[in-house]
């Protein structure tokens, strides 16, 4: 496995470890326990799902933007869902919206983003051979895979996939007689999500344990890159909130199949009064949003962590306010659990509770604002290299701001009365969560592609991809604010039934749809670039971005175990960029202060004495533990 350069660690006495190297094709690429392979599996799955998820949005955007369009050409794919007059079936419209939301939020931006980068970066950046449990990690992916298969299968059902919105509120989702999609499609949705949650929990436990137990010598929490902080807190969020969704889903399964009444009460449907009494649909909403709100941060935090790392590296400056960044992430992670009911202001929930949740919600805006300011200040007086990763990170900050500020409006319960469930909400969350985290994902791929595959992606294509996507996304979601202010409700198949929506914004809706199609097409540039660079990309040097974090000290194509020989020790924080006095504009984490007297700050000179201690620390090397 020692194919390329040895690492930079000072104590590189190469010692081939006799570890059971998984050699067969199956163990190496399919049922692999290597975190890097699992990360790639997550990445490929995420890309696959994003193509499906975004294609769905393009189909329903066709319906919204061009209500008179003949959709006969989609018949080969959608078959019965295009009716005799070549129109999209309204039931299927709802199914598309639902699957789009579910896929984008859970499969792309939770599994695809956090799954890829937590897996890939945690061991590499904390200096570990692998995850705490490679086996659980493998299980985590395969649970996700089975969940994916079930969800995918549900697309081909006669009765269609789930269709009550990604929030699947009962009773609509509980009663097959209420909607065609609440038949087998909903069953598969629930089964798939249950497996997905198991996958998330297995993954989360692993991330947390690895960060806590397997940091290399000297890697104290105060020296962790912000990416790791973000993945760590994300995993904590997921570990606490996903089980609640699991119970919500289980109770819904009971209501659907075993005649219980957790969410059902006093229902008369299809000429029949159901016997269920005493349940509460609101209970489901509380349970759902107890996950649902943290979920938006589960999606956001990894993207923000990735951005912190990429912005600092490419501005050649320390991230501004490292401690404030950690504090605000902790603040967000904590507050994320006590704001869920801001999604429920007008559900008939006690208005006093609404007041409480309004105050809590607006508090969470403060740490978010701090993060944005810190990113901007990091750019100030930097020496910015616009790598594609950097461009996407700057784009992320812009979306995070533009989408975030409208959260202050929606979090204000009095204003939410009018705006709830209108396109204003769609605009808000797509910018702040959808587009931002998608940009985090893309930024991460561009930035760590060399570490994943040993080759560089084409930068020029990356630039074109960025500008088309960045402009396109603003063109898609910015005008949705206007449509929302005009009162257009979301999840509407058509806007022809009401005077207040009829005949207005038709051209705006067409514009949005065209912008969406162009934005979608631009992603094929990325796909092409990805596949092309995989095989034909320029070979990457060991540390292409001149970055400080540990993963760039590993060989270009790290084998199982990541470092050849000993794992490097860590002596400094990861953001020593452009340090005055230093000859280079970066000093990797594994360079001891004793080697950089010219750039040490006074208090850092005192740390030189501790270096011996760090080196003497337990190696914490998984491969050297007695099995």
């Amino acid at each position, binding site marked *: 496995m020692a194919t390329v350069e040895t690492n930079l660690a000072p104590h590189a006495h190469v010692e081939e470890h006799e570890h059971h190297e998984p050699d067969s094709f199956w163990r190496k690429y399919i049922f692999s326990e290597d975190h890097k392979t699992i990360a790639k599996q997550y990445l490929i799955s995420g890309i696959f799902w994003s193509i499906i998820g975004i294609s769905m949005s393009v189909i329903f955007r066709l319906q919204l933007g061009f209500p008179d369009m003949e959709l006969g050409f989609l018949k080969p794919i959608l078959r019965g869902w295009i009716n005799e007059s070549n129109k999209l079936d309204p039931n299927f419209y709802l199914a598309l919206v639902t699957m789009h939301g579910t896929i984008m939020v859970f499969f792309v931006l939770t599994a695809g983003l956090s799954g890829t980068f937590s897996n890939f970066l945690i061991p590499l950046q904390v200096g570990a051979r692998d995850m705490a449990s490679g086996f659980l990690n493998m299980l985590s992916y395969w649970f996700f895979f089975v969940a994916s298969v079930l969800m995918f299968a549900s697309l081909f059902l006669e009765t269609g996939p789930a269709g009550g919105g990604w929030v699947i509120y009962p009773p609509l989702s509980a009663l097959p*007689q*209420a909607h065609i999609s609440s038949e087998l499609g909903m069953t598969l949705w629930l089964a798939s999500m249950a497996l997905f949650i198991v996958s998330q929990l297995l993954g989360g436990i692993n991330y947390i344990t690895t960060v806590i137990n397997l940091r290399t010598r000297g890697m104290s929490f105060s020296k962790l890159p912000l990416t790791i902080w973000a993945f760590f807190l994300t995993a904590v969020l997921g570990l606490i909130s996903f089980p609640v969704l699991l119970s919500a889903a289980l109770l819904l399964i009971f209501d659907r199949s075993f005649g219980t009444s957790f969410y059902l009460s006093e229902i008369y449907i299809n000429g029949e*009064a159901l016997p269920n009494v005493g349940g509460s649909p609101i209970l489901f909403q509380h349970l759902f949003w107890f996950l649902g709100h943290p979920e938006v941060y589960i999606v956001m935090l990894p993207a923000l962590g990735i951005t912190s790392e990429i912005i600092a590296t490419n501005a050649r400056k320390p991230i501004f306010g490292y401690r404030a960044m950690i504090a605000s992430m902790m603040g967000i992670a904590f507050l994320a659990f006590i704001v869920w009911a801001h999604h429920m202001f007008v559900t008939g929930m006690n208005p006093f509770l*609404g007041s409480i949740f309004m105050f809590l919600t607006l508090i969470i805006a403060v740490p978010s604002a*701090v993060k944005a300011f810190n990113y901007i200040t990091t750019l100030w007086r930097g020496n910015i290299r616009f790598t594609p990763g950097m461009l996407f990170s700057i784009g992320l900050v812009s979306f995070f701001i533009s989408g975030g500020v409208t959260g202050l409006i929606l979090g204000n319960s009095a204003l939410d009365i009018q705006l709830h469930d209108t396109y204003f909400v769609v605009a808000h969350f797509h910018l702040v969560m959808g587009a931002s985290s998608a940009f985090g994902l893309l930024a991460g791929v561009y930035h760590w592609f060399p570490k994943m595959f040993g080759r560089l992606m084409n930068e*020029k294509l990356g630039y074109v991809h960025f500008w088309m996507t960045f402009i396109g996304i603003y063109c898609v979601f910015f005008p949705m604010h206007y449509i929302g202010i005009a009162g257009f409700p979301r999840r509407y198949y058509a806007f022809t039934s009401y005077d207040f929506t009829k005949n207005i*914004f038709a051209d705006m809706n067409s514009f949005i749809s065209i912008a969406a199609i162009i934005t979608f097409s631009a992603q094929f540039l990325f796909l092409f670039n990805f596949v092309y660079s995989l095989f034909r990309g320029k070979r990457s040097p060991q540390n292409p971005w001149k970055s400080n974090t540990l993963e760039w000290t590993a060989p270009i194509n790290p084998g199982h175990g990541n470092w050849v020989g000993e794992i490097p020790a860590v002596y400094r924080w990861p953001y020593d960029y452009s340090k005055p006095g230093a000859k280079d504009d970066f000093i990797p984490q594994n360079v001891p202060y004793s080697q950089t007297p010219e750039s040490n700050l006074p208090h850092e000179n005192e740390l030189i004495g501790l270096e011996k201690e760090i080196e003497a620390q337990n190696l914490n090397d998984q491969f050297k533990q007695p099995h």
Partner: protein
Amino acid sequence: MIYIVGLLAVIFLAMAAVVVSRMAAVVRNVGGTEDGDDSSYTGISNKINGAMFMVFLILGGIAATWSFMHSTQYFLPEASSPHGRRTDELFWISMAIVTFSAVLTNVILFYFSYRYQARKGYKAAYYPENHKLELIWTVVPAVVMAVMVFTGWRAWRDIMSEAPQGAQEIEIVGKQFNWIVRYPGVDDNKLGNYNYKLTDNNNEVGIDYSDEKAFDDFTSTTEMHIPVGKPIALKIRARDVLHSVFIPHMRVKMDAVPGMPTRFWFTADKTTEQMKNELNNQDFTYEIACTEVCGRGHFSMRVRLIVEDEDSWKKWCAEQKPLLTSFPEYASRIPANLKAKAAKYLPADAAAPSDSTTASTQQGGAAASVSLR
């Protein structure tokens, strides 16, 4: 419209093509020189990207301003309820504050990106923290938000308060896929009890005729009439799945939840006629929509809302027939001691109908709307 769209598409594509060709040219022209230089990123690509941020900022700013001005004509007109005007005002103030902050921060973000792009021989500043600065930008947003929340909270508290004495009660019930409005009747002006098990095809909201308050209740599925200037207390229910009452012009929205009645009170202070004149649109009508996804017909659960002066409202109410009068067979559900009181709503010859009629009504209910889901 199709032309505008086509035009936009062409412009967009042209823009994309220009970008692509530019980039291709850049690749060709400077590919050689840049290769040696690309780790310092001071080449032309970096300059283009930096400049693009400024271009984006300026063009984006113009596009945003223009599109906003163009769109205001389609925004809902000023609210027709006092609480709505209050939230409208708060909305636009908050919107001004957040737009200002978003624009400011975006401008700084893009300007810094442009201004501090990599230059040859330049080294970035080592500037890891500044507690004073951090304190300022934690406290300032916190204070601004506190003010916004406080004003919002006061409005919320007032809007969600108990309906004032003398408010007119009206019930609105959501079902797949229309709203049913029930009035308390002209005689007692009190809504009678209901029980979902009594629902059938004619008694759509499950009125319970063992309660005498129910005798004069009447329903409507196409129109809701309300008096101007009088507080209206909506009592909101759902029959099957979640729905949500949305009266855009009144800034009213509240979910309808099966098994959990909800409410919302408001006062309409402009009649439909007034609005017609104000908007110069003789076809204007207030509308009620559904904003909680409820199935296939979610996008078309329209009910017209007619706001009129109290006299014509009373007149309209008096013209409506109590449900009991339309379907005298329900008289069989009236307990013996109340039969006398109900007599006035029943046709003179209506003896208590046989049970079989009732049964057939329910049958009818069972058969209906199965195909609609």
